[in-house]
Structures are given as C-alpha cells and as structure tokens.
C-alpha cells in the first residue's frame, strides 16, 4: 500500500488503512516520544495522543514531505507542547561553556540503545534541545520559536546536554576499559 493510498484510506476512515498506519509507524513514533518524555507511561500517552491528532488531521497532509516526516513533526510538536505545559524553566550559559563538548567520533563505539539511554537520562531541557537540534535537525532559531525561548538559551541548553553526554561517555568508556 502506497503512502497516498494509506492517507486516502485513513481520510475515508477505512479501518484497514488506519491499522496499517499504526502498524507501520507506531514503534518509530514511540521511540521519538521516549526521547522527549520522562517516562514510559508518559511516552505511551503521547504516542496515543499523537496518533489521534494524526488521524484527525491527515486531510491537511499535502505530500510536501514524506508521511513519516510529517507524523514525526506532529509527534514532536505534541511532546513540546507537553513540555511547555509543564512550565520548564530554561537557563542560559555563556559562550565559553558552549564551546565545551564531545568530539566527532564520541558515539562511534556505542550501541544505539546505549545512546538512547544516555539521551533519556538527560534532564528535560537538555534532552529536548538535544533531540530537536542533533537528531531532528532543527536550527537553534527554529527551536527557540518552538519552545518560546531565545536562541542563546537553546544553544546553552544544547551545550549543557553535550557536557552531560560527554560525562556519560567517559563513564561508559571507563567501564568498557575496565571490563
């Protein structure tokens, strides 16, 4: 079933197409939600809410990107709204602190699930900006707009996230060397 057929079927409220959409993308969206949410339960709730939004708004999908990209965008927006609703306090740091960080090959030796756990362990603010910048590929300006913060705060949150990740990497390397 092509994306077009899938979308058209979902708009027609065809249960088979709706189920296919669920089967095809739900686990990927769950992975995304897990990176933004604090717990498994919260991520599951976000996943369901995201799918409700997706089913309700599929008619607005214009095929200007892939369906998966659009769905990820919907899920990211929903997770960000949840974070904003929690009124997280964002802090900013100086440019010098921003320059600290990991090297290009820092994650080369790590498995995906290890990276995932490290990302999940980050505090909310760091994690959100890190996810949006490093993984989703948004610019700091876009992130600032999405989160209602200024660009410097976005950069500082990202920098802090990298510092924490570096510490986690150091620990992981130490552990692997010891073993």
């Amino acid at each position, binding site marked *: 079933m092509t994306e077009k057929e899938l979308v058209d079927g979902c708009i027609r409220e065809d249960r088979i197409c709706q189920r296919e959409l669920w089967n095809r993308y739900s686990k*990927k969206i*769950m992975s995304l939600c897990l990176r933004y949410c604090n717990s498994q339960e919260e991520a*599951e709730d976000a996943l369901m809410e995201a799918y409700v939004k997706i089913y309700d708004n599929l008619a607005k999908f214009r095929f200007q990107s892939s369906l998966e990209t659009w769905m990820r965008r919907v899920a990211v927006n929903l997770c960000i709204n949840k974070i904003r609703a929690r009124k997280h306090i964002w802090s900013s740091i100086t440019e010098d602190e921003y320059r600290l960080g990991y090297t290009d090959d820092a994650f080369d030796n790590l498995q995906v699930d290890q990276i995932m756990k490290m990302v999940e362990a980050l505090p909310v603010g760091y994690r959100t900006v890190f996810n949006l910048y490093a*993984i989703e590929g948004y610019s700091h300006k876009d992130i600032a707009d999405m989160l209602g913060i200024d660009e410097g705060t976005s950069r500082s949150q990202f920098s802090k996230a990298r510092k924490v990740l570096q510490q986690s990497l150091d620990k992981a390397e130490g552990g692997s060397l010891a073993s």
Partner: protein
Amino acid sequence: MENQRLHTDLRNKLHDLESPFNDRVSFEAVMEKRERKKRRAIIWIPTFAVVAGLFVIGGLGMLWVSTDQSPEKAPQITLSKSVYKPKFAQKGTLDKTQHLTLGGTSASSETASPEIGSSEFASSIARKRASSSRVVRVSKNETVSPGFEIPEIASPESTSPESTSLKFTSPETPQSPVKVAQEETLTANVAPKEAVLVSNEVNLPAAAHQDMLCDPQGLKLVDIGISDPEKTYVEIPEGEYERSWDPELLKSKWYVEMSATTGSKVVINFNEEDRLSVLGNMYHANYHGLILKDVGSGFMLGGGFSYGEWIGNGEWRTREFEERMKIDTFDVVVMIPPVQSVRVYDTTYSQVRVEEIGKINYRINKIAIPIAVRYNFMLGKMSWRLGAQVNPGMTLRTSGDFFGKTEYMPIQQQRMFTLDMKLATGPAISVYKDWVLILEPNMMYQTFNDQVAKKTRGKTLTGFGVSVLHRF
C-alpha cells in the same frame, strides 16, 4: 565545532529506532480515545455555539439599542449658557415702544423683565432680524429689575448662530400664559413687577420631537440621550393627558427568548432478581428560540423552534440461572464373598448463575415547535420566573438502543414523533435595558413514540438552563 558528522550519525542511528510499548497501547485504544474525543466535541460544540450566539445577539442588541437612541435621532434643544447682562446705565424706565425681530424657533416661552428699553438690548435683538420674518412690538412703561436674565436658545433647525430665539424668564411667574406672535405687532402694557411677554414661536416638527421628551406644556426641558439615566425621566402630566402619556402604554408587549437547557438522569438497577439490568446515564441538551407576548398579570404566551439532543450510554447485564447436572461416581467394594465392586453414580443438580455484560448507547436528535407559557413574579426582592413548555416534534436522527432499568430496545432508523414537557423556575436578572438573564433549574419529561414496538417511551431528566429574554 558543531559536530555535524556526529549529529548525522546519531540521526541515522536513532531515526529508524523502534521502541516497544505496553499492551494498553494499541490501535483499538487509540480509536477509542478518538471516539471519546469526538463525543465530547459533539456535546460541547453546539453548547458553545448557542452560548456564543446568545452573546453575539445580546451584543448586537445592545449596539442597536444604543445606536437607535443616539442623540442624532432627535433634534437637540440646548440651552446656551451665554446670558445677556445689561449694563447698569441701561437700567431704567422702559417707557417706549420697541420693535423687535425674533428669529428661529423657540422651544418654550417664559416671561422675563429685562431692560428691553436699552439700546444695546435693541441692537442685540436686531441681530436676529436676518433670520426672522416676525416682528414683535413691545411696549413697556415700567422700570424693570436688573436681576433678570435673557438666556438664548439655539434653534435646532438653523445652523446660523444668528438664528436664535429668545426666551425670557421670570422667577416670580414661571408659568405665565403663552402667546404666539404670528406676523403681527404686539403691544403690551406690563404692570410693575410683572413679567414681560415678548414672544413665543413654535416650530412644529421640533415641537413634536420635544413632546416626546418633555411634558406637553413644554415647561421643563428634558435632556436627550440614554447615557445618563437620571436625566431621561418623562414627567407624566395630569388630567386629560395622563392616559396618552402613560409610559407603560409605550412599552412593547413582545419578547424574544433564547435558551439552552441541559439535563441528565442516572439509570440504575441493582435488583438481583431481574434478568436484565441496565446501569447507564442519559443526557440531553435542548436549544430553543421563542417569541413571547405579555398577556398581562405576569403571564407570557408564545411559541418558537427548538432543537434537542438526547443521548444515553451505559452497560447492560443479564443474569441467568442454569441448572447443571453433576455426576459423581464411586466404586464401592462389597466385601461379602464373592468380593465385588459396584460403581455408584451420584447425580446432583445445582444452579449456576451466568452473567453477560455489554455496552449500550443511543442518540436521538430532534426538532420541535414549542408552545410556552411563562409566569413572572416577585419573591422577596428578587424577580422570578416560572416556565412551562410543551414541545411537540419529531426525530431527525436516531441510533443505538434506548434503555430503561430492565429493558433495552433498538430505535435505529425510525422517524418518530416526540413530545417533551418542561417545567423550570429560576431568578430573572436584568442585565441591561430590556435584556433579562434567567437561570433556571428545570425538569424535562421527554417522550417518543416507538413505531416498531407501538409504544410511547419517556424519561424525566433534571438539569439546568440559561435563558436570555429581550423585549423588542
């Protein structure tokens, strides 16, 4: 510095990562959540729409009221604050005839005793000749008090500052007789201390407007405009004018009412002896618009149009007792030679309760033509309203299974006649001029004629309603 390669690697690694979730998260759960959301929207969207509509209508009504009674609608009659103050030298015996030309219109005529004999006064009066064709000759042979003032009244008809009329006032004789000088020379001999009659000129269209706003004798000017309620009184004259000037007679007897009513009922049956029992809730939302007429003694009668939704959801449970046979077998060894064993079959019957549970819901959308009666009364210092209403109508849409405590029956695809009866009472709060808000708890008996079962079914739901009443 930005670790772009690393980020790309990370993106590639995490982008296609799939994570498992618990069993509670499933496609069915998502669809159920979506249905719940839709149901909520179905209830709230019409409610919000009606409330928003009421506010819009109210707002437009207020706008209309304020626009309709704007001061531009009626000609302004304003008293000029400029006062003619004669000089001391001009005070003296007025003993000669003067020719005065008065212009414009005069709202009222009152007597005064200014220094008409003075040349300055004559010249000020002469300024008014340009806009007047009326000549008044006043003869006076008495010294007048310098304490009198000559206010000017601006004409509503003329834009020229010259076209003003004169009004002479005398504090001693505020209601002196009025005479109109029409293209003639008037000569008057005025007694000492008496007011001098000069002129009264009446502009008929202006007077007609004025009559709406002040007493017919034109003695007291009334400010126009509703912004200051203290100034908008209408003095009711006595005698023969009384009936025609009764403000109550000018009030409209027609009203329009917009109302939103909700109600609910819980259906519970815990009787263990019933084979079928239902545990459910019923809700209704009813919106109506009525035209009402005040028929006197606090009663209003009227009719209109209404739309209602009546939904219910819950669970049914059936209990059935089955008689089940149980056979126990025993092998009994008979020790009497020859030893042999005997198999004994012990059959017992027992009753087992079998329960089945399922979900149930229904929806009835209907329209009706309500016939309403309202009674307004005072309780203490609060105005209250008692309303009764009968809504004969028909269904627009039916679906699901209607239920009672011990039964349910399908009502799909039926066009049914409906009859609802509503009783409501509550305080009536005046929110603005001619606008009243009524908050009324209500009881509504809703019925429909099930054409398949040839039976009329009904339930009484209780709830709360909000009405807005407007007199037009």
